[in-house]
Structure formats: structure tokens, C-alpha cells
């Protein structure tokens, strides 16, 4: 993805090469070593500044997102700006509690002692974000990194250039630039960054680049948080409130950046019998939402660039599916617009069913019985999200326990993203690690185990020379059996 747009990169006089990257990391490392990012006060002041940045910058952010993606203002406010404000609010409210060391019980074996788990910052972290929610996916991890007391370098996606340069400007203006930096650029800049040693790398994007990031991280033994995507399925049972289900699918698919979202429904599975009804209501609701000519609707994002437009066109032009379009299919190449498109009964070996769609096309797969959907989903790689619409409690339970996905939502789509008490992250091909709310704090913290002992309570059995009696006592001690200990001490066993 990055290669294709290298040409779009803003021309800059200064080249950001390996040397520049290295000196940047060194500078941040020094700031981190000074200890300033560790204090509660610094974290709070930076979090407040992020909140202020988002607040003050709202107009510019909406404009940048419109320029990069023709994102409707409401979508920008809902999914990017408000989400960020909420993240800041949660972090500011909870930070003190998150930072408190967690007391844990110690066992008889190590008596007398006390123990706790201390959250400490990892150091200097790198956040590489994506173009589809370029503001949210940049600053949300940064909020977590700051809350945990790290220094951060953010590399926004060059595919959303207006947002990238706005981020660079705002971060410089609002945040402590000795500890939080933005590096703009494409492949060469990212490569220079990835050569450096980081204490954690958080990457949002696709599996191909995810592999490159992890490979680079392996050289320095750096842990990674990979937020990738996948084909998130929606299973629709026939006993549902069809209108509500349909609208919620539309809200998650086309009202989320026109399907260019990692948790957007990718395809629908429903029964042969029910499919025509579902298609009818989908059409009806789509028309209510986006009018008779959706290409003219102001409420749909455009396709991000011509490469992605070509990719999506190819999916539609595949001869296996071109005859399956039951709604939409209109395209406008000059303005990079694609109308909400429904495809019925596409073959499972078609192109569209074998890669993440990431756009406004929604294939519908039909099965005889809704339970067959389980095998279809499980035969592919694990998706980031899985959705089910049903009123059948048994089916819900079965779905929740057998379908493996980053997250599962019953009777709705995408809303789990907005719930900060749930971890957000993938599994298998859809990524590793999770964030949001407290999970963000944990993702950028090291959990240090601390044991306090006093000089009393020293047991001779720990020490050589080893004897049979010591072995007996040890067995009793490790087993935690009081009676055994007494017996061993008195030599009764």
C-alpha cells in the first residue's frame, strides 16, 4: 500500500534517512531517561493537551478528512473526533487508578513476604497508523503511550496527506516536542524508522506490512502491537427484526468510511430462503439513507485513491462475480466514487471472497441452514470482528463460543469499538495485542513484579548441603500442606 503512493509524498528538502531517525530516537531516549515522562503530572498535562488539540483543531480536522477521504462531517465527528475526546477523558479520569501498583497475595512457600505489580513505561515507542481513520488511529494509540509514560514517535499514513501534515503541525504545537514527535513520510521514512531500536511498535494496517514490521522488530527483540484487518462476517438469521438488522449493517458498512474500515462487515451469510428478503430491505434502506443516486450523496466517503479504486474495480469485474450484482455497482472513476453495491450468491473461490474488501461492496453468501455459516467462517483466517443477527439464544451461545475473532457483536455491528471497557484487537491474521481504555495503558506498560522480603524467616532447607530431611520438608512446603510441614519438621514422615 505504501509503495503505490510514494509519489504523493510531500516533497521536503530534508531527507529523513536512517541517520536522522537514529538521532531522533536518541533525542527522545534522552528525554525518557530524564524521567520526566514518568510523572503523573506530565502524563496528565499531555493528555489534556491532546484533548485541547482535538477540540481546537476540530474544524481543520474535519477539513483534512474531507480532503483525504471526502469523509462526511458527521462521520469525522463521530468516529474520529468524539472517540478521541472520549479516550482522553477516560484516560484522564482513570490514570491515577491505572498507575497504582497492584498488590498480590504471596504464598506460604515464600512467607513472610509481600508482593506487587508495578506498571512502568516501556521507553520510546513507535506508532505507525493507517489512512482510513487517519486521525483516530494515530492519536488513540498515542494517548495510550502517553498515559503509560512513554516517549512517542508517530508516523501517520502518507495515503491521507492532509491529515498527516495537520497531525505534524498540531502535535508540534500542542504536545511536548522533547517527547512526542511526528515523522511524515512513506516507505523510505518508515524503513528508516523501523531500523531503529524501539521499546514497542504499534502498527495499524495490513498483514503484509504487519509482517515486515514484526520482522524488523525481531532484530531488536521489540514487542509489537499489530492491528490488522480481515474479512469480518455478518451472519443474519431469519428470525430477526429485519429492518433494524439491515440498518445496523448499513451503519457498519457504508456509514463507516464507505466500508474502508477494518471492522466493517466484509460479507453476509444468510439462508437461501431469507436472502431475497434481506436484499430487498437492504436496497430500501440504502435508498432512504443515500437517495436514488448514491454517487451524489454527501453522506458517503470516497475511495481513498486511484489504486484502491482500481483494486475494488478488479474485484467487481471478476467474471465470477460481475453477474451477481443485485444492487449498485455504479462507479465514477474521476471522483473515485463507488456506490453501495450488493452481490448475491458469489462463489466462494472468487477474488472478492478471498481478500479483505475494504470498500463499499457487500457480497452475500447463501446457505441452507444458518449453522453452516460457522464452517464457512472457521475455514478462513480469523477475522477482526464477527457479527450475528438473531433472536435465537442457542445460536448466540454457539456463535460466541465457537467463532474465533478479535471481537464478537450480537445484533449490531462495529459498536464494540466505542466501548472502552472492551479490549480492541485481533487474533491470528487479524493481529496481536489489544488496546482502548485501560488496555491501551497496559499495552504500553511493562508489568514489573516486585517482591519485598525481610531478613527474618530464613529456612535452612533452602540451602545446601542437601539432605533427605530437607527434601521431605520441601515437598511439604511446596505442596502448601501445614500438616506435612509439621510432620517433616518433627521427622514423622
Amino acid at each position, binding site marked *: 500500500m505504501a509503495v503505490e503512493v510514494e509519489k504523493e509524498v510531500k516533497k521536503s528538502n530534508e531527507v529523513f534517512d536512517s541517520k536522522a531517525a537514529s538521532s531522533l530516537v536518541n533525542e527522545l531516549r534522552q528525554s525518557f531517561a530524564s524521567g520526566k515522562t514518568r510523572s503523573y503530572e506530565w502524563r496528565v498535562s499531555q493528555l489534556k493537551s491532546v484533548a485541547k488539540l482535538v477540540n481546537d483543531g476540530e474544524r481543520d480536522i474535519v477539513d483534512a478528512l474531507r480532503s483525504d477521504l471526502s469523509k462526511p462531517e458527521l462521520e469525522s*465527528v463521530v468516529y474520529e473526533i468524539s472517540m478521541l475526546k472520549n479516550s482522553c477523558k477516560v484516560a484522564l479520569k482513570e490514570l491515577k487508578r491505572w498507575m497504582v501498583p497492584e498488590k498480590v497475595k504471596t504464598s506460604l512457600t515464600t512467607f513472610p513476604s509481600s508482593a506487587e505489580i508495578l506498571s512502568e513505561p516501556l521507553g520510546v515507542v513507535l506508532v505507525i497508523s493507517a489512512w482510513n481513520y487517519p486521525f483516530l488511529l494515530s492519536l488513540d494509540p498515542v494517548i495510550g503511550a502517553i498515559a503509560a509514560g512513554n516517549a512517542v514517535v508517530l508516523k501517520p499514513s502518507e495515503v491521507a496527506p492532509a491529515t498527516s501534515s495537520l497531525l505534524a503541525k498540531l502535535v508540534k504545537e500542542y504536545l511536548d516536542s522533547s517527547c512526542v514527535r511526528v515523522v511524515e513520510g512513506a516507505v523510505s521514512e518508515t524503513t528508516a524508522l523501523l531500523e531503529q531500536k524501539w521499546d514497542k511498535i504499534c502498527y495499524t494496517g495490513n498483514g503484509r506490512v504487519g509482517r515486515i514490521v514484526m520482522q524488523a522488530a525481531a532484530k531488536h527483540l521489540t514487542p509489537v502491537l499489530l492491528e*490488522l484487518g480481515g474479512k469480518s462476517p455478518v451472519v443474519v438469521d431469519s428470525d430477526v427484526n429485519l429492518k433494524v438488522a439491515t440498518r445496523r449493517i448499513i451503519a457498519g458498512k457504508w456509514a463507516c468510511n464507505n466500508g474502508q474500515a477494518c471492522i466493517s462487515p466484509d460479507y453476509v451469510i444468510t439462508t437461501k430462503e431469507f436472502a431475497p428478503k434481506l436484499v430487498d430491505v437492504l436496497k430500501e434502506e440504502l435508498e432512504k439513507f443515500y437517495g436514488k443516486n448514491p454517487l451524489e450523496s454527501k453522506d458517503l466517503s470516497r475511495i481513498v485513491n486511484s489504486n484502491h479504486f482500481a483494486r475494488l474495480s478488479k474485484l467487481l469485474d471478476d467474471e465470477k462475480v460481475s453477474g451477481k450484482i443485485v444492487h449498485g455497482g455504479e462507479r465514477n472513476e474521476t471522483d473515485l466514487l463507488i456506490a453501495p453495491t450488493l452481490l448475491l450468491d458469489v462463489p466462494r473461490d472468487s477474488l472478492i471472497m478471498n481478500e479483505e474488501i475494504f470498500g463499499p461492496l457487500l457480497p452475500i453468501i447463501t446457505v441452507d441452514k444458518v449453522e453452516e455459516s460457522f464452517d464457512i467462517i472457521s475455514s478462513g483466517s480469523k477475522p477482526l470482528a464477527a457479527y450475528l443477527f438473531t433472536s435465537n439464544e442457542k445460536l448466540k451461545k454457539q456463535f460466541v463460543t465457537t467463532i474465533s475473532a478479535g471481537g464478537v457483536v450480537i445484533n449490531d455491528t462495529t459498536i464494540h469499538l466505542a466501548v472502552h471497557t472492551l479490549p480492541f484487537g485481533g*487474533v491470528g491474521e487479524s493481529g496481536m495485542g489489544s488496546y482502548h481504555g485501560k488496555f491501551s495503558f497496559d499495552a504500553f506498560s511493562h508489568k514489573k513484579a516486585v517482591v519485598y522480603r525481610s531478613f527474618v524467616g530464613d529456612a535452612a532447607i533452602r540451602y545446601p548441603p542437601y539432605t533427605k530431611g*530437607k527434601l521431605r520438608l520441601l515437598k511439604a512446603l511446596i505442596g502448601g500442606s501445614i500438616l506435612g510441614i509439621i510432620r517433616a519438621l518433627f521427622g514423622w514422615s
Partner: protein
Amino acid sequence: MEATLAEVKETFKSGKTRSVTWRKKQLRALIELIRENEDKLFKALHEDLGKHPTEAYRDEIGVVLKSTDYALSNVEKWAAPKKSPVPLFFFPAKGELLPEPLGVILIFSCWNFPISLALDPLIGAISAGNTVVLKPSDQAPACSSFLANTIPLYLDSKAIKVIEGGTEICERILQHKWEKIFFTGSQQIGRIVMSAAAKHLTPVTLELGGKCPTILDSLSSPSDLKVAVKRIVGSKWGPCSGQACIAIDYLLVEEKLAPTLIELLKKIIKTFYGEIPKESKSIARIVNRNHFERLKNLLKDPPVAASIVHGGSLDEDNLIIEPTILLDPPLDAAIMTEEIFGPLLPIITLRNIQESVEFINSRPKPLAIYAFTKNETLKRRILSETSSGSVTFNDVMIQYLCDTLPFGGVDQSGFGRYHGKYSFDTFSHEKAIMQGSFFPEIEPRYPPWDEFKMKFIRLAYRLDYFGLVLLLLGLKR
């Protein structure tokens, strides 16, 4: 190997490992395996490393029994879904976290604790409901073959497999796709494992090592000092003769304490291991010739050799190195830049014990830091200014035995953690579940967008319920 892998994959797919009953059955079988084969285990550990049965029990057999017991009594609780509160706005939706097994797990264990480092992660992988391939270290061959021969007799052989072998087998194993790789060993191999994992986007837990420092403050009470030194001696030469990832690597003390400390160390070494430690049955040997040579080379460097104040004799035939103490070897010598992983103990003197914080910070983050002190300022500085996998005050290595504490490194000492519930988490995916209903339907969620919907959503995000009511009643502008 391909057939083995296909079988464990198939077993996982069948879903049988997901049931808590299956998990408990395996854990019980593991306890039985250890109980019934204690003597064989003692023998294998003696053969590979010369461990005394007491040491073997304390560091391996006992540890595994304790961990299995703990998992057995908690697995039901761990596997249950956890309710997660959801903001009122989403009412009546419910949120929960459901731990699910990852799939097929690969465990690489290490030779220094060839039983506990193999079985401890296995307990976690089983508790979480996974199928497992275990690859024990070929440098502890007796233990490796014990595991390969005994595990199939006790555990579900369709779900839990042992593959023996060396480098070539490891390379082949790493080409396959796993759902998680758990590795205990060196940084160099850790990098190879993680690079291989990256190709398949497989998450890894790396349990590596590092130079674990021990700070010994000038304790005012002689009895405290004696307890401290006993704990130091017991932990440096006790577990596998210093061949442990959390063993003390070097000591940091104030100059003025050094002479007393050396005398005390010598005295306690003598009590523990007798006049001729090489003949003691209570000390493990060096694992093999390669490591023996490596340790020998650490001592060879003339300025290092000159810094030896105790011990230093090597028995090449029996691979035994006597407890050896060095005073202020050069800091740029290999012994102070590489992980020692053996019975050599350098003492580094500082003018003031507070300098130890800077000393530690100028080196890679260790797996553990130990500090014997009653000075609260120093304790606080160690906790907040240094970074390490764990910190233990006034004792050594006991953090490993505490099931409630996460065990794992940071930076060059590894990442990911295990033990107790953390083992379960390491081998689980915590799935976020949200259950909604078809009612109520919130109209402003849907396009076409307008001013009212915008206001509504803004208020909703602020969780401003009063504002929402006013807006809906048309009282807010």
C-alpha cells in the same frame, strides 16, 4: 513431523481441548506423571546436569507440581467469561470478555531447568485449552527423552506431542504456522524465532536472560548481612550452579564492604559445599563442554584472571567449576558484558551504593534485579528509576515461585509473561463480546446526516444523558 502437526491441528479443530473437563484431566495426568516418575526425573536431571535430588525437587519437580495444583484449582474460574460494564448509552447491550484458546502452540524449552521450563508453559497452554507441540532442548538429552517417552503415556497423545531434535529440527518446525510460540533461551535464538514467527504473524513470548545485578547495601546488623550473604550464595550456586536466567550475575557493593563480604562469602560457601566444592554432591555441573569452554574463556583474560579472589579451579573431565569470586574485573571484559550463566560471581565496588542505579541503567534491562537494603530511598529509586522484569528486595529468585506474580522480561530480557493466571492469559485470546438487542433503535445513528443527529451524537459521546433528553424533547438548541 508434518503428520504430527496435522494431527494436533485436527485435534484442536475437533473442539475437545476446549472443554474444561479435558483440561483438568490433562492437568491431573501431569501430576500423576510426575508423582509416579519422580525417581526417573531425579535420575535424568542428575545425568544431564548433576543436580542433587533436593535441588531437583526444589527447582523443578516441586515447582511443576505447585503450578499444576494452582492451575487445577483455578482453571474453571479462569476459563469463565468476565462481565464487562458497558456505558449506559448502549443499554441494554451487555459486554463480556471470553477467553478462548489460540490453537496449536509451540513450546521451546531450555536445558538449564529442562523439566520445569518445559512443563510450566505446558500447564498454561493446556489450561487455556490449546493443543501443544513441545520441543525440549537437546542439550539436556536425558530429560528430553524422558519427556518424549513419558508424556504420551499420561497425556492425551492426540493433543500434546513432544518432538525431539537439534538445530535442524528447530529450523523445520519454525517454518510451520503456529498460533503461538513460547520460547525460553538466548537472545540470539530469540531473534531467529521471532523473525520466523513474523512470516506467519504468530505472536511470541520470549523468555530470555540478561545480567541480573544484586545490590548489597552495607547492612548495619551483622546478622542481616549474614542472612543476605546466605541467600546470595544459595541462589548463585544453588540452582543449577548459576546456569539460570534469574541467577545473580554480579554483585554491587560499596568499596568498604568488599573485604568483609568476601570473607563471609568464603565462609558460607564452605558451610554449604564443604572444603572441596568440586566433590560436593550439592552443586550442579556445567551442562556441556561448549559451555565449559565458554566459562573457561571468560576467566582466561589476564586482568580477569588477576581479579579472582576465591575459587577458579576447573575440573575439565567432570565439567565442574568451583564457586568463583572475582573482585572488580574490568568492566569491558566479556565477563561483565555477557551473561555469565555459570558459577562465576564478579563483585563490583562502588563508592556509594546509590551509584548502583546509574550502573544498572547504563546496561541492558535485566530479567531481575535483587537488592538487599533497608534504605527506603534506595528501594524507591530502584523501583522507579530502573527497569527490569522483576525486582526482589532482600531475597533472590523467590519471585519465580509466586504464582500471583507475572514472570517475564522487558527489553533484551524478553517480552510476554507467564506463571499462574498469566500463563493462562499468555495462551488465550481474550475475545470481546457485545450482545445487543433489536430494541431500542437509535435513529441518529443512521444517515442521511443532519444537524440534529450531529448534536445527538456529540452528547451521547459525552454521556450527557440530561442533554440528550433535552435535545429529544426539542428543548435544547
